[in-house]
Structures are given as C-alpha cells and as structure tokens.
C-alpha cells in the first residue's frame, strides 16, 4: 500500500498547477484516484507543446505511427502536411522574441481552426508545424493545403497596441503509400522534400507529392460495372448442375 505523504509529488503538482490544472488532493478523492489523476494529467502534459497548446513532436510521432498502421490495413488516403513560417527569424530579429511567440501562438490557433476534429495538428519544431489528415482524398489535398496557406496569410497578429504583424507559411505534403506499411521517417522525408520545393519556389505556397494516380474516369467505371446491373436483376439465378460455384446474392 502506498502512502501519499511518502511520495515526492511537489514537482508534479507544481507542473500541473502551472498548466492550470488542479493538483491538490480533493476531499472526495481516494489516494489511488488522486494518483491516477496526476499520472493522466502528466501524460497529457508530456504530449503538449507549452507555448501553443498544440500537440508536440512526441504526440505527432505517435499519431503518425497509428496512421501508418491504418493505411497499411485499409488503403485509406492519409495526407501529411509539414508547414513552416516564412522568414520567421527576421520577425524575431526585428520585433523581438515575444512578438515571435505571439505569431507562433496565433498561427497555431489558426491551424487548429482550419481542420476537422479527426485531424492532428502539432508543433513539430521551432517555427515548423505538422498536420495529419486521415481520410483525405488525393483530389482534395492541394486545395486543402492552399486553403490553410491562404487563411494564415490573411491573419493579422496584434503584437502591440500599435503594431499588427502578418506572416506567411510554406507547406509541403505527402500521402502515405497505400496498402503498404511504410515508416514515419520515409513519410516525413517525402513531405519535407515538398516543403523544400515550396520554399525554393519562392515561399508562401503549397506543394504536394501526389500519390501515383490510379485514374479511372466515370465513363470507364460505367462500362466496367455493367455486370453488376445484371447481377442485381437476377439475384438468385444459378448455373444448372454446376456444383463448383455458389450463389451468394
């Protein structure tokens, strides 16, 4: 049996209190319940970027790992976007780090508002963000990245009563190879290559590594599926005396 007074919980409590969480033992709480709550809160904290409140790199990697498993099993299209603030260093140099932090926070908030609840937005590093978009059709990838880019470009961040800052981002994206269990490294590398392309093409733009196209037009599909219409018309028809095939209507 663990006695709470024997444990050194001061650091943990302080961390949680700093994050605005209640870190005190509640009156109606058993020691076990309390410890579980502290552990859960610490786990949550360990996945969060303190400045922006977004998921951190650890959170991002875990989410990406899970998506690779999904893609391998289901062939679903999942898009990974890597986003980098353009000329962020000069914002810091000109207006100071506090202004830089405010820009980071504003863009983080804006990105989180651009996506669906199933998507994962994380702060990947200094001025770099990452977004994982499950179930995102290849057709829509570029339009989506463009929309995010435009929304950020339209932001005006008040950093002092007299000064609003504007910033742009460059975006690189890549789809996970479908039906294959790839690795997070290879996937990130492909998205990063696109980000590099967007940067070297002049920044404030989005480049997507499109998956190899399996393009079949509606016309082709129409002709391809004509046997299904026949199947539906005679759902119980079976070949006479044929025992090697079964009807499964």
């Amino acid at each position: 049996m663990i006695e709470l007074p024997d444990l050194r919980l001061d650091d943990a409590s302080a961390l949680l209190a700093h994050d605005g969480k209640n870190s005190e033992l509640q009156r109606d709480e058993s020691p076990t319940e309390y410890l579980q709550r502290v552990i859960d809160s610490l786990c949550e904290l360990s996945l969060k970027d303190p400045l922006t409140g977004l998921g951190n790199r650890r959170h991002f990697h875990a989410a990406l790992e899970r998506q690779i498993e999904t893609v391998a099993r289901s062939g679903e299209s999942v898009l990974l976007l890597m986003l980098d603030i353009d000329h962020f260093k000069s914002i810091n140099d000109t207006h100071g780090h506090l202004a830089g932090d405010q820009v980071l926070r504003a863009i983080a908030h804006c990105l989180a508002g651009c996506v669906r609840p199933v998507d994962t937005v994380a702060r990947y590093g200094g001025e770099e963000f990452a977004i994982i978009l499950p179930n995102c059709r290849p057709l829509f990838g570029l339009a989506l990245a463009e929309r995010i880019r435009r929304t950020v470009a339209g932001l005006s961040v008040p950093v002092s009563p007299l000064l609003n800052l504007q910033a742009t981002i460059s975006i690189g994206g890549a789809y996970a190879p479908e039906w294959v269990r790839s690795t997070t490294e290879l996937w990130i590398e492909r998205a990063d290559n696109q980000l590099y392309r967007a940067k070297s093409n002049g920044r404030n733009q989005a480049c997507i590594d499109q998956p190899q196209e399996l393009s079949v037009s509606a016309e082709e599909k129409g002709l391809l599926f004509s046997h299904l219409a026949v199947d539906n018309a005679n759902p119980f028809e079976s070949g006479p005396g044929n025992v090697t095939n079964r009807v499964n209507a």
Partner: protein
Amino acid sequence: MNDVLTPPTQNPDAAQVPLKPLGKVLAVTSGKGGVGKTFVSANLAAALAKRGHKVLVLDADLGLANLDVVLNLYPKITLHDVFTGKARLDEAILPAPGGFSVLLAGSGMVEYSRLTSEVRNEFLRVMNSLVPNYDVVILDTGAGISDVVLFAVSLASEVLMVATPEPTSLTDAYATIKVLVGQQQRQIIRVIINQATRPGSGAAITNQLQQVLDRFVVTGLNQPIRLVHLGDIPVDPEVRQAIMRRQLMMQATPGCPAGMALTQLARNLEDSVIPRAA
C-alpha cells in the same frame, strides 16, 4: 519487358549468373489489397506442386507480408537476412506445407517498401539465383502500384491479375492493367476472378474489362492488350476455416469448391504457359 531478367550491367554480381530461359515467373498482383493474392499464390503453388512441378513462392509484398500467416511458418532466417547479407539465399528457402518451397519476407522488410537501388539489386540477384532452380517461381506482390510492386511485376514472364467482382477491386485491377500496359508494354495479362458469386460470372467480368480496355486504352502501334480469363474461384467457407486452423486449404480440403477451382487453374496454366511436368 519479358527479358528484364537479363542481368543489369550495373550489378556485376548478378551478371555472372547465367539465366536459363526455362523458369517461369508468375507475378500475382491485384491493385486492391485483401482480394486473395496471397491465398491464390500459396494454393496455386500447392496445386502445381501436386501436378509434379517444382515451385517456389516468394513473398514480394515487402511492405505488408502475410504469406507467413497463411502458411503458418515463422522462420528465423528470411529474405531480409539475405538482403542485408546476414544469411545465404539457400538458408532462407524452406519447405512449405503443400510440397513447394517458400521464401518469406520477414518483418524487417518494412524498410524495403520503397524501391531504392539497393532493393532493386538485391531483388534481381535473388531472382537470378532462384529462377534456374525451379519450374515455376510465383511472386506474391503487394497491393497498389507502388514502385516495388511494379518492379516485382516487371520481373515476371506472366502476370496473374486477381480481382473480385466488387467495383472497388475491378477499378483498381483495371487501373493497374492500364499502368502495366503503359509502363511495361505488357500484351497479355491473365485474370483470375476470386470470390466469384455466380457460375460463369468471372469470364463475363474479364470480358467486360477487355471491352473497357479496348475502348479507352490506346496502346499505340503495338499489339493491343489481351486479357486471358484463367478461371474463377468461388467464395468458399473452407478458405477462411483453413486460415483459422492454420492450415493450407489445398492440403486440408483440396476437394472443396475453391480447391477444385485452383486445381483447374493449375491445369489451365499448363495448357498455356507452363510445360506439363514430365
């Protein structure tokens, strides 16, 4: 592209292995995943072995191998060790239930899910050593048209396209055929309709695919692409039951509808591409 097995000049190791043109390499592919490629590869191998052929199945689904599960074999030494130089090729080849040989990919192959020049060369080296020793080599490829899949298919003298009657499977099979025609100048692709729901429906589906190809796919001055219907395999509960029991269907219940269909497929192959066993 039928002579891609000719060793590439940049790989001196492979260039020293002479190739007898006897070995037949069949690539089993599908476009969509989960349609029965691995099931067909393993059981067709068993059906051919029963008819006297010396067969090897290579797990070419480097990204998502599951041949080991179907055969219930979990060896220590796999293709991964051969690729990384930790083991010799002959150490990784093992006998499978059903009387054929098998070369499993192993879980370490994840890093080979992309076609680097290393993967390419290793793959070629392995194939060049294997082919002279077998009557038939079957490549169980991955789904989709990733570069690894296309490369594996390019090594094969025959393509067996597995599809189910479902629209998603047909669309992916059709799209894959288009790529194979465009990129590899394939002229004949053999179609297997798995999980066929009605007798004779498979041939009609292949015929339908052919009509769409004829209408929409331009092959330039070459011969047009020709689909050959190799056969149907019905939906059969024995297939799933064999997997649940960790047995090979062709060994456990060869007389079930799917088993009989696979025996017929093996016969059809003998009539068309594989010389009958002596």
